[in-house]
């Protein structure tokens, strides 16, 4: 069964997407000027089967986050179709539902409800979530007194408890200290062993090869290659290395996208 299926999906954004004042609307209406479109994705088709883990690689602005937004159902495609099945949970930005004035426990409840747990599931998962986050002394303190690493810990701990068939992950594994990162990796590996799927955006080659078996490479909104992680990474890094040499700098081995 395919959990996610993109069929010739295109998505564009208006070039001046941030301008939302009445003045801008009036000027555009009076001058009758159509907005220039910026295509974030052009004619992209792929599918993710149940139990499969797929990485999305590409340089900044290649359309990776837009692709996750479409897969999460946060935004509708402008042409083509996105089919989604099963429970799809997001880890797009850790702590996006958190409020600085709420305590750890209150943020935990709020975010558990936002990722789709009901009251009973939340109270059942409560101990497991606080154990995972591992910051018991701060659970009754308002979040504004927390360090950013602590926020990320709790956010990841809540997110991983979503009862999902699939996780959409945007660069959020590199959180907290080394020990916590190890814990996150182990939890994700466990999730995959139990048959869970992952659609994973990352620039960290090591994490990509560890989590995923398949990869797709996006470049300027187009799907360049869809295949095994090794082949796609080799092709993508090959291109990145050439681009870097042209620019006169050696390609970084660990971080494809840097600097």
């Amino acid at each position, binding site marked *: 069964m395919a959990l996610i299926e993109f069929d010739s999906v295109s998505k564009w954004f208006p070039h001046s997407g941030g301008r939302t004042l009445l003045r801008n609307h009036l000027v555009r209406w009076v001058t009758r000027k159509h907005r220039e479109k910026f295509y974030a994705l052009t004619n992209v088709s792929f599918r993710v089967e149940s139990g499969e883990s797929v990485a999305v690689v590409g340089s900044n602005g290649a359309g990776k986050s837009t692709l996750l937004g479409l897969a999460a159902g946060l935004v509708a495609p402008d042409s083509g179709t996105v089919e989604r099945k099963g429970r799809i949970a997001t880890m797009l930005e850790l702590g*996006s539902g958190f409020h600085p004035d709420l305590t750890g426990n209150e943020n935990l409840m709020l975010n558990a409800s936002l990722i789709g747990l009901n*009251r009973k599931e939340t109270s059942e998962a409560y101990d497991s979530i606080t154990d995972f986050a591992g910051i018991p002394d701060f659970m009754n303190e308002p979040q504004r007194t927390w360090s950013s690493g602590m926020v990320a810990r709790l956010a990841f701990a809540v997110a991983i408890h979503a009862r999902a068939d699939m996780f959409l992950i945007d660069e959020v594994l590199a959180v907290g200290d080394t020990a916590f990162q190890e814990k996150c990796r182990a939890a994700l590996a466990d999730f995959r062993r139990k048959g869970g799927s992952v659609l994973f955006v990352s620039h960290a080659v090591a994490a990509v090869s560890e989590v995923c078996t398949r990869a797709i490479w996006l470049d300027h909104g187009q799907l360049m290659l869809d295949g095994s992680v090794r082949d796609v990474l080799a092709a993508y890094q090959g291109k990145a290395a050439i681009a870097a040499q042209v620019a006169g700098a050696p390609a970084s081995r660990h971080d494809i996208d840097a600097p």
Partner: protein
Amino acid sequence: MWTGAYRFAAACLVEKDFKVRYRNMSLGLFWSLLNPLVMMGVMTFVFTRIFSNPNTRDFPISILCGLVPFNFYSTAFLTGTTSLVDNSHLVKRVPVPREIIPITTVLANCLHLAIQIGLLLAIVLIWGKGVSVSWLWLPVVWGFEILFVCGLALIGSSVNVYVRDTRYVVESANTILFWLVPIFYSFSAIPPRFREIYQLNPIAALVMALRNILLEHHAPAFSLLWRLAAVSCFTLAAGLLIFRRLQRRFYTYL
């Protein structure tokens, strides 16, 4: 789509709004009580001592009957309108149903409203007006106001995503409405040819209904009730339709 527990998520969001608002006030709920009382005092002074006024009996409660619904309407409509922009991090990152955000913002204001209704009823009793059977109408008329404001918040919040000036339009509309709702004057002072228009404004209709119920101990007129119900339900339906239509591009504009 989103498979979560709608009611649990809504309850958590309402709780969040409420806690965040009151946690930063040292006197907490006391402010909810103080503001209408001070306004009641000032307006009573102005409209009985400075302007001459033939019916000064019951004037303070009459004013409170106007202030409580109006305060709720104006705060809930404004915070509802800005709710999507204020919570853009949720709209862009978490696939919750979007209409839950303006609606829970309005519902969070309802807790505030409940406190003010409690104050209003307490003052009515202290004033010696007593309880009557017509009090049974109170949940009905308040219910329609909440539906009406939910509809307004759905429209305001979705339009505000596209045109950020919307909140200033709402602020001005609220100021204008303060004068067009019979807060410091009574229904009988309104010239007959304008009365029907007044009844079509759910806030004005609620104020008049409250005075009927609390001061005159009789049920509101049927002509007023059906208009209140019709306009409220229509606004909510229009709000849901407009919201559904506009939410397709929220992601792009937030």
